[in-house]
């Protein structure tokens, strides 16, 4: 290959042999090692315990709702991890299975459908039905290389949305709203706390089942075929059947999650199961570390918590500046570099502010969108031009758009700069520009900004640390 060898000499034996040593040198690697050596039961308890006491500590309904949502996201991430993390298949129809589970629950237990199945029958029936659907969807691509599965499943998602939005029996975009609460052996779950514990029990059960599957013959076969499909086939593993199985198991988990989600929300709408949700769940799996049960659980909790924080401009600011500073401190070596860069950025901002005050006061006339104390500090530092955006947060002229596109170009360009000195010098204005774009554009539309950030995070993560926080680094031997 003409590519010059990048820093790790991949494929060289000594490099492979010293993989464990290198892992032990980084904090994340050491954490991952500890996690790996802990027995699964301990991990499960470690996760379940804080969740179990959560309702006792929390009073507000809003936080309870966030807790339930988090558990639902964790379940989704666990389900997606089967196909994506263990087998390495790109399943783009995953949220359709989640939606199918929710709509099936609506069909089995709602006033609209006129049925009131009890949950102990409905949930297993839905799990089986959705798993079978997953199997059928995967079937056409069984003779083909893995990539075609992505197209079929993406199209399946589109089909799902077309049917749910347009069919009369699903009542289109209005959704089905008279869904009955979960009812176990004659007792209905009525409180948020109750639903929280139902979701928690589902989490413990599914985590346990998936752990056992992963330890079993099937689990090993899955991982083998992810590493090398051809070799696995030559070892007489039924590759196609294994893929379909993984696909169906993932779909089944999604179906169960849907069956819990529908009564929690009390209604189902097509908009609950779109591409945005799909990418969010992917981000959870990838951030935590595809293939690691602990990883995807942590990933789901982290991402859902961040998404919630990003809803509110003040919390969002704390999160944004916090993450930025922590990233700088962790990434920059030697250690004295990060205070220098941060100091430089502050000075740069103050200078820009001073210049603007003298020559172009209109650059300071705007107001910040956040209300936290941090925003008052930022007001005297970042340029806030008048009328850069409309009250809805859309850029009014070319300046806002240019600043945004310029920021992306500058960040990408910075990664190409070879000289370390120039990269550090360039980092200062880029950081300032990032703060400018954040205060003026992103904070104006937090709902969109969080998805921009998720997309950027996915790309950056795949390039910088594809194994995520807890995943195992793959050692490829070319």
């Amino acid at each position, binding site marked *: 290959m003409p590519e010059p060898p990048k820093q790790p000499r991949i494929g060289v034996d000594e490099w492979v042999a010293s993989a464990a040593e290198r892992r032990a040198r980084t904090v994340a690697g050491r954490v991952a090692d500890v996690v790996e050596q802990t027995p699964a039961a301990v991990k499960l308890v470690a996760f379940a315990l804080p969740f179990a006491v959560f309702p006792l500590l929390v009073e507000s309904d809003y936080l309870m709702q966030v807790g339930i949502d988090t558990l639902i996201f964790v379940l989704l991430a666990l389900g997606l991890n089967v196909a994506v993390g263990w087998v390495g298949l790109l399943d783009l129809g995953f949220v359709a299975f989640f939606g199918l589970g929710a709509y099936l629950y609506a069909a089995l237990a709602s006033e609209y459908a006129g049925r009131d199945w009890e949950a102990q029958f409905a949930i297993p029936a839905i799990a089986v039905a959705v798993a079978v659907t997953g199997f059928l969807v995967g079937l056409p691509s069984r*003779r*083909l290389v893995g990539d075609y599965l*992505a*197209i079929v499943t*993406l199209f399946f998602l*589109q089909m799902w949305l077309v*049917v749910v939005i*347009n069919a009369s029996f699903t009542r289109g975009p209005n959704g089905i709203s008279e869904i009955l609460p979960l009812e176990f052996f004659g007792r209905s779950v009525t409180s948020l706390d109750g639903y929280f514990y139902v979701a928690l029990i589902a989490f413990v059960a599914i985590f346990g089942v998936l752990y056992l599957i992963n330890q079993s013959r099937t689990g090993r076969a899955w991982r083998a075929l992810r590493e090398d499909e051809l070799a696995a086939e030559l070892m007489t593993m039924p590759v196609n059947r294994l893929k379909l199985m993984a696909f169906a198991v993932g779909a089944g988990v999604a179906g169960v999650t849907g069956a819990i989600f529908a009564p929690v929300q009390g209604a189902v709408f097509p908009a609950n199961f779109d591409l945005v949700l799909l990418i969010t769940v992917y981000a959870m799996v990838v951030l935590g570390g595809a293939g690691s049960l602990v990883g995807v659980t942590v990933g789901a909790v982290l991402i859902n918590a961040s998404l919630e924080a990003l809803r509110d401009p003040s919390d969002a600011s704390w999160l944004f500046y916090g993450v930025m500073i922590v990233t700088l401190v962790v990434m920059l070596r030697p250690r004295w570099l990060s205070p220098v860069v941060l100091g430089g950025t502050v000075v740069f901002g103050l200078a820009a502010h001073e210049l603007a005050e003298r020559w172009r006061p209109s650059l300071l006339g705007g107001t910040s969108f956040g209300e936290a104390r941090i925003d008052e500090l930022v007001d005297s530092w970042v340029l806030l031009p008048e009328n850069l955006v409309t009250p809805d947060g859309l850029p009014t002229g070319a300046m806002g758009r240019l600043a945004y596109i310029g920021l992306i170009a500058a960040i990408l360009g910075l990664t190409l700069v070879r000289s370390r000195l120039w990269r550090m010098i360039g980092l200062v204005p880029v950081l300032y520009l990032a703060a400018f774009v954040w205060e003026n554009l992103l904070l104006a539309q937090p709902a969109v900004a969080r998805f921009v950030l998720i997309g950027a995070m*996915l790309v950056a993560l*795949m390039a910088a640390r594809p194994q995520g926080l807890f995943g195992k680094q793959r050692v490829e031997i070319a």
Partner: protein
Amino acid sequence: MDWDKIVQLLVNGVTLGSVYALVALGFSMVYGILKLLNLAHGDVLMVGAFIGWGILGWLGGAQDPSVAVWLLLVLMVLAAMAGCGVLGVAIERFAYRPLRRAPRIAPLISALGVSFFIQNTVLLLYGANFRSYDTFDLVDVEVGIHRGPLNIWVIRLVVIAAALVMMVALWLLVTRTKLGKAMRATAFDREAAAMMGIDVDRVIVKTFFIGSALAGAAGVLVGLVFGQINHFMGFNYGLKGFTAAVVGGIGSIPGAMFGGLFIGIADAFSVGYIEDFTRGRLGSAFSDLVVFAILVLFMLLRPQGIFGKPEVKKV
């Protein structure tokens, strides 16, 4: 038989099909060389549509263009091609190249991220409202061919002709030039091509530029014919383009052209007739079901597509 309707649907289908073919070409070229599903390809088309719209507005808008109409159209297409070409190269450089040796799924997830990022960036900068090209103000709807059942608006002719010209140019590029030879060699066996002295990275960059430029042009053509654009339009065209590429035979250029036309015509006719055939039970929104059925049938019966060769696994 209602001939007027059939002819009209055929015209619609060919117009739509030439757009799908352009998308399928870029998609298929990249797949041929990198074995990578470029899931962000549809979003590149969307950016092209917005660039064309921006140029239109900058040159006075559809009501009162400051240059001749033909020049305006040419400028819109060229600007979108240039912009999208650069975008495609940037995507390759920053999202795919670092993952050249990673497991197969890594660049696909990265592509998902790129797609999501581009969509939400446009949403952030331009909002969720549909933007209109107002092509009817630019060129009167009566201008065109009117003979018997045949009614073709001149813009449709322009779109079909433009797509045809680009496809022929691409065909000549791939079969007659040195770059085309290098592209074919790289697609056939990347390592062997590198050993023969082909700068594989440059070939990949150029492939991305050409493929994305075609998608950009397709975006402007979509805007011209159908008028409305928004940040999410790329999803539909990307999906149909992928389907066209699979049906035609992924990696094959005539396959992508033929597959595009086939899917376009199938799409148009299912929109036109699905209501009649299901006696009103399924509305035209369900026409995608037909295209999906075609995709599934092809995967079951002829997975290599019409023009493709059966895949041989190489170790």
